[in-house]
């Protein structure tokens, strides 16, 4: 049990989140191996446990595992972000009932602060796990610890060993067992140790989490700086990383896609970029931000041999913040016109809005767009289109195996 003054964090992590979302709406898949593909059906980005044990690795290009997938009848799904996003917000809301302090860390992970709770934390977290499962259908595991790094480690244990029933408190582990556990974890798997840091550590013989734990703090600080030092101290139970309740304000918004097939025609590319600009602006507006710089970029596939390779982009700055799609869409077309070169096969493109500022309408006497246009808000917003958005839709990413948007689209509800 935790001492009264000790900090206590829990990391709630959904099990194979994307695959679990698919299973909620298709229970037949309950025990089937599932893989979910990235945008445009490129790479494997999520796997069910069954698919993991078939040896399908994260990030593998789809075509490389196609034979195995057919051979083992693995279920393939295109990523369905409207569904995953909605299910994520439901899961997060249920979790928030269990602590006054919550940090939504990613689409499928959330930290909560349990410091000062006098109730039995194991029971409390079991209740959380069961409620998330019964309310949303998504299975989760909970790891607890006196710091966020320890909670993250604990979550790993909760996932691996069924005997803990999905909830594990790492502070309850005796010291020798804790060290043994660290020995079984690679240094790259410690929370906060990135790929580059792990490489640096491995160069001086720090391979496991235990090597890291018993290393000299001075060496860690020299090698990885203050962030590495913080994680080191976190493993020892000194909380250095607090819960971040408010996500840091966005610095930039990027909206980009690999096209469904390579495009050379200006109008086709312009159609794609207009749609992507609208998407970026709607993100901008939903966060009440305005932009002061816009970049447009298109490139050819660098992996395709025997075709000329080119990477085109252009950025423009603005004198006053803008959040109006009626202004940004023509700007995007203008930039595209300046960079576009015929004769190339472009495979990816996008827009980036940078230098975001809070949207204060009356900031500048010369500011434009006091009556901003956003088609979405129009009564016919879902069907109205900008002229440059119309075309043959060839740019749309491939999503051959996408399930329905069960929770966000009236036309795609679950049918019983």
């Amino acid at each position: 049990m935790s001492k009264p003054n000790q900090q206590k964090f829990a990391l709630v992590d959904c099990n194979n989140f994307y695959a679990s979302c698919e299973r909620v709406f298709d229970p037949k898949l309950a025990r089937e191996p599932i893989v979910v593909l990235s945008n445009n059906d490129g790479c494997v980005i999520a796997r069910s446990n069954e698919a993991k044990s078939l040896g399908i690795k994260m990030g593998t290009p789809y075509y490389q595992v196609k034979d195995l997938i057919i051979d083992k009848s693995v279920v393939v799904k295109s990523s369905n972000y409207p569904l995953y996003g909605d299910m994520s917000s439901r899961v997060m809301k249920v979790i928030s009932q269990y602590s006054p302090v919550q940090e939504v860390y990613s689409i499928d992970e959330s930290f909560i602060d349990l410091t000062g709770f006098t109730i039995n934390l194991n029971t409390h977290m079991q209740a959380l796990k069961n409620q998330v499962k019964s309310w949303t259908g998504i299975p989760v595991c909970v790891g607890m610890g006196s710091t966020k790094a320890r909670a993250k480690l604990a979550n790993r244990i909760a996932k691996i060993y069924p005997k803990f029933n999905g909830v594990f408190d790492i502070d309850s582990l005796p010291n020798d067992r804790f060290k043994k556990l660290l020995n079984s974890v690679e240094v790259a798997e410690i929370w906060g140790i990135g790929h580059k840091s792990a490489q640096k550590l491995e160069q001086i013989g720090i391979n496991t989490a235990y090597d890291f734990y018993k290393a000299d703090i001075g060496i860690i600080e020299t090698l990885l700086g203050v962030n590495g030092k913080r994680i080191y101290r976190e493993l020892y139970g000194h909380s250095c990383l607090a819960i971040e309740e408010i996500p840091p304000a966005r610095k930039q918004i990027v909206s980009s896609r690999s096209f469904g097939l390579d495009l050379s025609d200006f109008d086709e590319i312009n159609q794609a970029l207009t749609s992507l600009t609208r998407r970026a602006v709607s993100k901008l507006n939903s966060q009440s931000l305005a932009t002061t710089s816009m970049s447009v970029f298109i490139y050819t596939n660098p992996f395709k041999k025997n075709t000329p390779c080119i990477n085109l982009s252009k950025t423009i700055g603005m004198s006053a913040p803008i959040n109006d799609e009626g202004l940004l869409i023509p700007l995007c077309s203008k930039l595209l016109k300046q960079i576009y070169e015929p004769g190339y096969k472009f495979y990816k493109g996008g827009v980036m809005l940078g230098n975001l500022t809070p949207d204060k309408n009356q900031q500048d006497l010369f500011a434009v767009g006091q009556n901003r246009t956003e088609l979405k808000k129009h009564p016919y917003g879902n069907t109205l289109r900008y002229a440059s958005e119309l075309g043959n839709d060839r740019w749309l990413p491939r999503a051959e195996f996408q399930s329905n948007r069960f929770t966000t689209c009236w036309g795609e509800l679950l049918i019983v």
Partner: protein
Amino acid sequence: MTTNTQNRGGARLGAGRKKNSGKFKEDTKVMRVPLSLVGTVASTLEVYKSQLKSDMEVLKPDFDAPSLSIPIFSSRVQAGFPSPADDHLEDQLDLNKHLIHHQESTFFVRAQGESMLNAGIHPGDILIVDKSLPAKSGKIVIAVVDGEFTVKRLYKYKGKVSLKAENPEFKDIEINEGSELIIWGVVTSVIHQYV
């Protein structure tokens, strides 16, 4: 003539490269650099130069400009007689509040088939389903029998579980030892649209 002498030799007005047309686009200055630092300085300059060359076209950036907010007067000037209804204003009726008690666990599902006609569920109707409610006997539920979805009335009696259709033309489903039953959610309302 004095003009003649001025035209001959010396600096001539407008000659030479245009101001700021060099690679750094501003005035430059000659400076002594220790040999050991030449590489560092040169690479710094390269980076700087590449940034100058970048495709950034800035119209008029002023990213550090202090933010200035001018207050807007939001209260309207009262002209005319105050509304006698002001004191009696109430919230408007919200169907979401009326029909949905747990936002996180409520899903919409579309019905097909006529097995629940007598319970008022027609093909094409939208069912409001709450996954958080306990599956009590007598409730209309979304059930999963051996992986297949179905909407039926749940009956639990003396340890036996069955799913009853609400239409005599359809058979009830008895849940036997071998088959698997999952209650996916409890139907709380039906939306049947006439137009």
